[in-house]
């Protein structure tokens, strides 16, 4: 083989990867400009900003993130994250559920990213995706996640899957968290309905 064709062998995949990468970046920017939303997401955003004034457009409104210096966050997402954060504390204290969440209560070295931070983020992504129809959750599907055999951080060899009763307790804990934050009952009802759409994938004995 001639030297030039050998160099080509290395250069061609290199260029392909670069082209691919640059096209990804363009897509990201396009996504930022068109933000579809839903009434429930707007209501959540309106609620977290003090529940005054008009509701429409409040979900995707960018506001300062109270828990992340110098960052901005969609108001609707902040509402969801606030509820999820509270709910994870209740879940970790729940004897029935704590066995499934070893990473949530695991000790990590100082300065390391915690299991709480990761789960808070991915769970918020998931709920934001479900509520607002924005495509932010990038993780595996719910069936894969909620089985120890396919997702190591779920449960343990002794508790590899969860059942319907676990599921009810889980949603109850999320609802309790929302109530303690004074989220309006109608909003909690809608969130509950949304969460129950995943029951078939998460509780192994769901009908």
């Amino acid at each position, binding site marked *: 083989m001639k030297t030039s064709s050998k160099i080509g062998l290395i250069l061609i995949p290199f260029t392909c990867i670069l082209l691919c990468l640059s096209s990804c970046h363009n897509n990201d920017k396009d996504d930022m400009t068109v933000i579809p939303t839903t009434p429930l997401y707007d209501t959540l955003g309106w609620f977290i900003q003090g529940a005054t004034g008009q509701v429409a457009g409040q979900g995707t409104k960018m506001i300062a993130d109270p828990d992340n210096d110098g960052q901005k966050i969609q108001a609707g997402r902040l509402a969801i994250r606030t509820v999820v954060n509270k709910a994870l504390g209740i879940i970790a204290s729940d004897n029935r559920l704590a066995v499934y969440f*070893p990473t949530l209560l695991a000790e990590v070295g100082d300065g390391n990213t915690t299991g709480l931070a990761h789960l808070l983020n991915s769970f918020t992504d998931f709920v934001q995706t479900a509520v607002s129809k924005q495509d932010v959750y990038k993780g595996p599907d719910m069936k894969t996640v909620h089985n120890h055999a396919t997702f190591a951080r779920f449960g343990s060899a002794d508790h590899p899957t969860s059942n319907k009763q676990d599921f009810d307790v889980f949603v109850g804990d999320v609802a309790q968290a929302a109530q303690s934050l004074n989220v309006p009952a109608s909003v909690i009802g809608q969130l509950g309905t949304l969460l129950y759409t995943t029951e078939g994938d998460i509780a192994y004995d769901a009908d």
Partner: protein
Amino acid sequence: MTMKLWQKIKWTLIGLVGLAFLLFLTLVIHIGVMVYHKGPLPFEHIQMARTDFLSPLDSKQIAQLKSNLGAQKGIKSIYLNTKDHNVVYSFDNRENSASSIYQNAINEMHIKAKPYTVSAKDLESGCPVMNNHSFYGKLTSVISKAIN
């Protein structure tokens, strides 16, 4: 003859080094695509810990517990579960640790209590990238800092 052998070795070496380089490049770009536009995680260093009480606490003990915990450095939230008799608290793990909070806030109250611990086996499962001390963890944070 020796010249040809030399050539073969040379091109094999160039090929291998090139391949290794390409694979490494793919890894770097792959991580780059994953972390691009991801700001720092909120609550990145907020850790949760739990202590179980062997018998229910009375209201005086509850008040004492809450004020003890609240006085600890880096504490962010306290959730008392009166049904299962335990307390879950969260704290900034750059400022304090679960065991030192337990020692200073709960152990000194002399009530029957047990810190909730997770077995080492459960801890091992997980993504190496999320362990900031591993090679991949370090590589990921370097790339993240470079492109964000």
